[in-house]
């Protein structure tokens, strides 16, 4: 028997915060509760009506996409591994070694806000520094996202005075900021971390602090293994550069790229497919991805679950190779291995169909598979093909050489694979070009490559 609901409980019920079938049944059968529910629902509608949804046109998305920094892929070459560390951090966080005896002095500036070092933790893989502030009671974050990037500077300084910029990952709350510096590529036993802030919260000023780091002891317990083994098959190169086995983490650096022959082949393909196309259309033929396929296996031979099953490495068709630092695996510190089974990469295709909407439904064949293109209600266009034999993995649609789709969705059933595009609302349903941009190719090594984890 369920008692009548309090108003508070009823609000939680309406908000979907309580999902209780017996409560639901009670409300339906109890006159008081159903009347209350109805009354509260009516006020909910009134409040919702006060704040009607704001309509945002499809062009908004294009405006944002057009304004994104174009040099992203270039930046990526330098910054990519930091993102990986951001995820590593969560699993490794419990294994910090507390490093004591470091100077923890307060630094004040001309303003009333002062910064002090609250905590420093250091492992073989990274340093975590928490700075605390006092004298500020506002609502802003320490490091305002809207600040100009170059106002606040954080760097690594070697004993010889050489200054290096260093990757970092900052996490912040109002009166604290925590930096995590990955150390995988930092080989120096001693250095200083230097923080130089000129604008924090919403205040201009000058805050400088230096933290000397001595990791000789940790380095002595950390083994560096030059892997330098390279495997090539069917145009994909996988190079194992270095492994680092410390008391807390095992880290690996792997480089994947197209072999010279494959890079030239991809370039030739693109050049050939785009030879007679106007410049504006050549954009549909850029950006090919490659992914290393690997498993992490622990001492007992058990394959560990990974949140991201494939580590993605972008390879552009300009022979662009990228190194990847694989995650740290504290859970396999008693032993185990990485088993790299192969790689998946994408090649350009020459599938390009100039169509009018009157021609739909339309079908064509590519490498023995039939692809069907049809128009669905609500400005949607669907491409379907056999699940097992489908080669083409990404599509593109343009009208007047501009991207004509707003969102795309994928689904697969037993027979077919479907890609559904929602077209831009304001485009004329007249003629368009459909591109099969890339096809996926899997390369499996004859034998999985094993890399031991200590």
């Amino acid at each position, binding site marked *: 028997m369920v008692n009548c609901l309090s108003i508070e409980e009823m609000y939680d019920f309406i908000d979907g915060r309580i999902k209780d079938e017996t409560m639901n049944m009670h409300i339906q059968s109890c006159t008081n509760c159903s009347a209350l529910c109805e009354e509260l629902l009516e006020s909910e509608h*009134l409040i919702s009506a*006060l704040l009607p*949804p*704001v309509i945002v046109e499809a062009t*908004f998305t294009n405006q944002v996409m057009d304004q994104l920094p174009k040099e*992203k892929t270039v930046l990526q070459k330098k910054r990519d591994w930091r993102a990986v560390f951001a995820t590593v951090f969560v699993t490794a966080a419990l294994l910090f070694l507390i490093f004591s005896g470091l100077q923890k002095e307060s630094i004040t500036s001309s303003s009333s806000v002062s910064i002090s070092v609250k905590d420093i933790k250091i492992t073989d893989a990274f340093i975590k520094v928490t700075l605390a502030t006092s004298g500020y009671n506002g609502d802003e974050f320490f490091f305002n996202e809207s600040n100009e990037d170059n106002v606040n500077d954080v760097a690594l300084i070697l004993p010889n005075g050489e200054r290096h910029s260093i990757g970092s990952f900052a996490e912040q709350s109002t009166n604290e900021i925590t930096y995590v510096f990955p150390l995988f590529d930092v080989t120096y036993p001693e250095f200083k971390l230097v923080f130089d802030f000129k604008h924090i919260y919403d205040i201009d000023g000058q805050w400088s602090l230096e933290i000397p780091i001595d990791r000789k002891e940790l380095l002595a317990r950390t083994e560096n293994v030059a892997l330098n083994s390279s495997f090539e098959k069917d145009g994909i190169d996988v190079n194992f550069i270095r492994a680092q086995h410390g008391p807390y983490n095992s880290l690996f650096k792997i480089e994947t790229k197209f072999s010279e022959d494959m890079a030239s082949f991809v370039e030739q393909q693109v050049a050939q497919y785009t030879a007679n196309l106007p410049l504006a259309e050549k954009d549909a033929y850029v950006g090919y991805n490659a992914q290393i396929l690997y498993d992490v296996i622990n001492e007992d031979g058990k394959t560990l679950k990974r949140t991201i099953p494939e580590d993605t490495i972008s390879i552009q068709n300009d022979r662009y190779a990228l190194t990847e630092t694989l995650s740290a695996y504290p859970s396999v510190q008693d032993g185990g291995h990485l088993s790299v089974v192969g790689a998946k990469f994408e090649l350009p295709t020459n599938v390009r169909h100039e169509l009018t909407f009157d021609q739909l439904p339309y079908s064509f064949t590519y490498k023995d598979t039939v692809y069907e293109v049809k128009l669905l209600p609500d400005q949607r266009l669907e491409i379907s093909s056999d699940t097992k034999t489908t080669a083409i993995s990404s599509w593109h649609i343009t009208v007047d050489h501009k991207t004509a789709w707003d969102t795309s969705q994928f689904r697969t059933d037993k027979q077919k694979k479907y890609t559904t595009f929602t077209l831009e609302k304001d485009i004329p349903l007249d003629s368009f070009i459909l591109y099969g941009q890339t096809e996926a190719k899997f390369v499996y090594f004859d034998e999985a490559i094993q890399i031991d984890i200590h």
Partner: protein
Amino acid sequence: MNEQLIQKIIVGDQQAFRIIVDTYKQPLVGYLTYQTKNEELAKDIAQESFIKCYENLSKFKGGSFKAWLFRIAINQLIDFKRKNKEDATLLEETPSLDTPESVILAKEQKAVLQQWLKTLDDKTRQIFILKYASNCTYEEIAETLNIPLTEVRNRLYRTKARLRKSKLKGDMNGELLID
């Protein structure tokens, strides 16, 4: 937000960011519109926020992605207000929002409710906007505004209880509703 999608964007698949913009543009522009009372300005700030979000994507550390994006937008808004102090009137114009015709609401009642909305303190009003205009969960609101979940729940509950009480008494002149 899907961790793999974010990873995909970080490693260079710029087009995948489109999914993020499409998913959050409506709630974000909605929130900013009610906060600035100026739809065009709201869209500009929303665009800047998405670009900021893209540039800082590698700093996203988990938790609610929606709340993270909204916090970036709130910072952008604060920044805008700071830079435009001399032009403060911009943010004080009457709302230019049209309620869709499909919403059937007696004019008088609507006017009274709108008056009621104005009487709410800033934080409570933000919570209402995030919940109703931007469809945020209690958890997302708490993370966005950096307040405990219970505060979100209590503020919503208390304010709605007061609204209900005055409605029952037929007294909707707003006086009873002021915090």
